[in-house]
């Protein structure tokens, strides 16, 4: 596995772990609770819907890295970018479909930028 795909896999695994841990800590909350469960002391929160979405996107990115399918990595990056937009639109409001806050924005932005940069520059290198 080349260094670019290893880096994609690393970012995807971090996202996947964050999603799965968020799923565990959000168990018992309503699916779309406006305040999600906290991911340790990081301040990152997702409710069940948000955690499931993060887990699925992490899996898609990991599959893309392992199977050399750049469109999958880019799709996951786009998904994380949409989560970042959701935070900007709904954080601090009574309707917050993914149970997010500012720290979740930072996490989603990082996943989107990291996967996006790696996928786009890998393409340019071909």
């Amino acid at each position, binding site marked *: 596995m080349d260094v670019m795909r290893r880096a994609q896999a690393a970012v995807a695994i971090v996202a996947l772990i964050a999603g799965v841990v968020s799923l565990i800590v959000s168990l018992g909350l309503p699916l779309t609770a406006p305040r999600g469960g906290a991911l340790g002391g990081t*301040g990152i929160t997702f409710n069940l819907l948000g955690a499931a979405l993060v887990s699925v996107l992490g899996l898609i990115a990991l599959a893309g890295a392992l199977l050399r399918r750049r469109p999958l990595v880019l799709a996951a990056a786009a998904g994380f970018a949409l989560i970042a937009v959701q935070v900007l639109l709904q954080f*601090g409001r009574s309707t917050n479909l993914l149970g997010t806050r*500012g*720290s979740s*924005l*930072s*996490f989603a932005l*990082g996943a989107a930028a990291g996967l996006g940069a790696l996928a786009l520059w890998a393409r340019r*290198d071909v």
Partner: protein
Amino acid sequence: MSVTRTSPVGLAGEANQAGGVAFFVTRIVLALLWIQNSGWKTPPDFGQSAEAGLYKFTRFAVEHEVFAPYAFVVRELILPNFIIFGWLVLIVEASLGAFLLLGLATRLWALVGVAQSLAIALSVLNAPGEWSWAYYLMIAAHLAIFAAAAGRYWGLDAVLRPSWERSDSRLARLLLKAS
């Protein structure tokens, strides 16, 4: 009698490795600092109506003045346009967390971190209960990861710089400088 010596090259290698680990850890800790603290900058009014949260800490720049020109800017420009300022702070701090965690364009974001730490220090340094060394340490830590180009230690800068070096594009040249 035999004398066991570590060659200077070996020592330098070990020192470099230890330094790399230290810069990596510093970068991750700073990223987590910004990630956690972007969580309480809450829109839509960022604490203005309750005089709490970001609004309260921003007002400290005027109520417990540290530097007169900065207090003037806060009083005349920032507080009257506080919602715009709140969004700006949220986006900058969330981006600091994201990019320092990735180690992407690390030197650029380290400088942004210095500027943001300085702005916070100028707001709260004289406020009751504040420990001023926390802000000096934040500034120093950002300067350290800037100087060390800490994204080149287990960061995306290390992965992407070879591609940027091969590229002729303007973006690649900018990213090389930012990393």
